[in-house]
């Protein structure tokens, strides 16, 4: 139940310290602190877009500049009041943020870095040459922000304005990170493809990330304009962009507090070393390299790494010693399975589906129908097109020809997140859990069935987000208990044994209360006991009214569990029917087992699981 943090005393202490700080500082130190807070705001924005959402953004300094320059231009040229100009400035920054975010829809990682870097360069060139920005001379004479009779020309009083804005910004950032938007952003960072299949609208999330970064950049720019009351191109140079990058990397980009520590720390160190600037620059470079190599999670990640190292040495890590709990089927809700429209047609209907990759035909005229409430097995040799079939059904690939309909409509052209929200869930052959999130968070990502476009709630009505959050947490507890994962709720998936990770994938898929579940080799890597547990889980899921389609190589499991089996070979359906019928089909024996004796297909050999 830790929404902000479980330590209100610490927060209160921080507030008192922040309030008392100016009483102990001379005017020079006060100025440096004022500057440090502005950089901390910028760093939080960077942390949100880079650390939380995983979008490389080297244009943060341009957001900073747009906020500062818009305020400067509107107050000095157009005679706007400071705060009116500030609001327009923030709006302008958000627009620029969305514009800079556009390339992220098409490219990622270092390509995105290059494009955003180019945009930042373009901005500096523009302000150096444009008439309205005063060229290289910049814009001076920005008025002191009026504030209910408080003289903000006094940098001590300005500090209080800054610290309140900063406090609100940090609280809002933390709120975003720890609630549903932040979970989706982090899920996207860890695995964009899986996040999409779990209901996250990736393009919209990427734009949201850039928008968040631009709001923080714009706010920092406005505060800068009000503090220095002069803007010039040098302030928004690439040199400062890399300084900002160093702050975020040294501090720890995945933790907002880390970003703040990095920013404040580096501003203070830079000030202390101002007389050794040449060596200091070199020093930052070395520190950044060392951080990336030895502590990729930055300063913020060090406590956890130490704790983990100590835990390994003691070997009494409670997570490792914990046992996977038994599966406790829920009270068969079947809430999501509409019984309306009697019999409501097949759960999944594929007709004449073809998928080509260039000259390769992966699926060739596949037709198959899965009844409601059926457990369907799909088998076939490696490379026969099973996973491709799943990828087409779940919207990762577009079919080259043919139709797919399921979850009540034609889904040939639907996007993965639409299918997820409509009631389709899947697991992946190679586990695709969100590795930097806890097990509970993995579940929570899917429990949240809201459209990403409801992020407006964050700006307008955060209380709604919070009450929704309480409901989601309660549901997460239920899902964790149901799948026997309560003991691992706060562990990171990659620290857990393989069998447990498989269980988490199924729990995660089922958290969205789907009507159709696709399992891609759910038994791969499981021991005999675990396969038995899996079998009972799948049956129970079906008993709740969910249609299950599974790809599996474990023939024992398939033969005992599935009511009907479809056999693929070289992209075509070569047989379909009950396990016994399929096992007797000569084509299957030939394709699957070669010419050798068919006798040992273990039709009845699989043990009945309890």
């Amino acid at each position, binding site marked *: 139940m830790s929404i902000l943090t*479980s330590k*209100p005393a610490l927060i209160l202490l921080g507030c008192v310290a922040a309030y008392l700080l100016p009483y102990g500082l001379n005017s020079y130190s006060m100025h440096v602190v004022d500057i440090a807070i502005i950089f901390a705001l910028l760093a939080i924005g960077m942390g949100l877009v880079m650390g939380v959402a995983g979008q490389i953004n080297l244009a943060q300094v341009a957001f900073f500049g747009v906020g500062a320059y818009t305020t400067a231009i509107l107050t000095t040229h157009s005679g706007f009041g400071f705060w009116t100009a500030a609001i327009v400035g923030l709006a302008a920054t958000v627009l620029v943020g969305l514009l800079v975010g556009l390339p992220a829809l098409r490219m990622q990682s270092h390509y995105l870095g290059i494009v955003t870097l180019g945009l930042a360069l373009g901005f500096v060139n523009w302000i150096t040459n444009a008439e309205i920005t005063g060229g290289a*001379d910049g814009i001076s004479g920005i008025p002191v922000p009026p504030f209910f009779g408080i003289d903000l020309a006094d940098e001590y009083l300005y500090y209080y304005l800054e610290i309140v804005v900063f406090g609100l910004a940090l609280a809002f950032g933390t709120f975003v990170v720890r609630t549903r938007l932040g979970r989706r952003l982090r899920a996207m960072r860890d695995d964009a493809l899986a996040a999409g299949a779990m209901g996250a609208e990736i393009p919209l999330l990427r734009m949201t990330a850039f928008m968040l970064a631009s709001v923080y950049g714009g706010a920092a720019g406005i505060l800068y304009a009000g503090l220095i009351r002069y803007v*010039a191109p040098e302030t928004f140079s690439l040199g400062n962009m890399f300084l900002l990058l160093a702050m975020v990397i040294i501090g720890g980009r995945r933790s907002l507090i880390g970003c703040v520590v990095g920013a404040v720390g580096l501003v203070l160190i830079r000030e202390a070393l101002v*007389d050794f600037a040449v060596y200091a620059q070199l020093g930052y470079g070395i520190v950044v390299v060392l951080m990336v190599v030895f502590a990729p999670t930055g300063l913020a990640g060090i406590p956890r790494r130490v704790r983990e190292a100590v835990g390994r040495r003691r070997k009494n890590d409670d997570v490792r010693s914990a046992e996977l709990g038994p599966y406790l089927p829920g009270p068969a809700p079947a809430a999501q399975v509409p019984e309306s429209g009697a019999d409501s047609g097949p759960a999944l209907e594929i007709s004449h589906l073809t998928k080509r990759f260039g000259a390769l035909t992966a699926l060739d005229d596949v037709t198959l129908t899965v009844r409601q409430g059926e457990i369907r097995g799909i088998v076939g040799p490696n490379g026969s097109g099973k996973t491709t079939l799943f990828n087409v059904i779940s919207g990762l690939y577009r079919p080259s020809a043919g139709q797919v309909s399921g979850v009540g409509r034609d889904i040939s052209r639907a996007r993965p997140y639409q299918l997820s929200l409509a009631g389709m869930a899947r697991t992946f052959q190679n586990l695709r859990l969100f590795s930097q999130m806890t097990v509970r968070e993995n579940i929570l990502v899917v429990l949240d069935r809201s459209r990403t476009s409801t992020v407006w709630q964050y700006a307008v009505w955060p209380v709604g987000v919070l009450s929704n959050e309480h409901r989601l947490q309660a549901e997460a507890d239920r899902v964790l208990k149901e799948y026997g994962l309560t003991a691992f709720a706060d562990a990171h998936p990659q620290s857990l044994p393989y069998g447990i990770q498989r269980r988490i994938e199924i729990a995660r898929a089922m958290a969205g209360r789907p009507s159709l579940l696709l399992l891609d080799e759910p038994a791969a890597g499981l021991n005999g006991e675990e396969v038995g547990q899996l079998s009972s889980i799948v049956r129970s899921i079906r008993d709740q009214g969910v249609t299950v389609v599974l790809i599996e190589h474990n023939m024992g499991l398939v033969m005992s569990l599935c009511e009907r089996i479809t056999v693929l070979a070289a992209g075509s359906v070569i047989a379909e029917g009950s396990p016994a019928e399929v096992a007797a089909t000569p084509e299957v024996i030939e394709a699957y087992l070669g010419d050798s004796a068919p006798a040992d297909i273990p039709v009845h050999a699989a043990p009945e699981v309890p």
Partner: protein
Amino acid sequence: MIPMRARSRHIVAAPAVALGVLLAASACSAPGDSSSDDADSSGPIKLAVVDAQSGQLASLGDWEAKGAKLAVEEWNKKGGIDGRKIELTVFDDQGDPTTGTNIARKLDSGNYVAMIGTAESAVTVAMAPILKQAEIPNITSGQATALVDVKSPFLFLNGPTSTTYDSTLADYLVTTKKFKKIAMISNNGSYGKGEHDAFTAALKEAGITPVTDQVVTTDQKDFSASLSRIRQAKPDAIFIGSEEVEAGLIVKQSRDLGITAPFAGAAPQGTPVFIDTAGATNAEGTIVSSPYLSNEISDASRAFATAYKAKYGKDAELHGAKAYDGTNIVLTALKNSGGATGKKLADEIRATKYAGLLGNFAYDETGVGIFRTTIGIIKNGKLSAAQ
């Protein structure tokens, strides 16, 4: 014990209320700098040089610091001011305005009486409001008109503004040489654009429109397209608004294209770097507008150049000379006022008449002390005053 597992709503509310109460209280007793501004009048007099010592502008900053140090050393050798030694500290602004404002606050806290620098107009403008508030006079080496627009009574220039460079040059070309057809080539960087705008304005004043106005980029290496246009226009003279190396390349390539008209420009075109890049023959006849044509221009400049060479082992140049002049003006004002500070010192600087390397300084209320440059012409690879 404080309950560590309070409900989240209380977590949000408690600090917010606390902060609100504290903020309300802050209206009564605002924090502030309690250290007094009383400079003690017995210890050394503290002067600051603020300039980029690292980054792209480091060489400029280094020249400036050398000039200022030389002046302070000479004064200290003569016994300082009223028996007080002068202490000069160099601060590195890294060419960054924000760092500049930090240093401005530091000068205030450290009771510095005056500041020399910076060479970067943007940094100086950013520092100006703080220095004005702290009443620390500042003699800058910048030449942008933005410095004058700041209208701070504590800000002075140690040279002419860029407008002066270009109006002197335009006046010489149009009135003295009677040139009618003037072509322009400048780059789109901050220096080039400033020169372009100032020279265009000066020409307009003289009633001349350039026959062609070519703009190149700062990193361009081949100028044949622009130069062909200039050749077609058959100008009497060509104005260059560009830094040393690029200007040298432009002159070299235009001679290759058969352009024979003389080039004209501001201080960069008088430097050895420019002459070396263009080649002495190609640069022959280039008209230069500069307040400090060379180390050989007067007895004072020869003495300065000799002392500079003796101390640093390098040839003196314009920026060192400007900082040397500026430092001398501050020290003269300090001496005349008996070690005054703040507003009194600023007034004293404004009243100081000083015969320096760049000419006779006499400040007006805008903080500009020099209103003319000298026209020089390159002959046999050396810059000398025009006859």
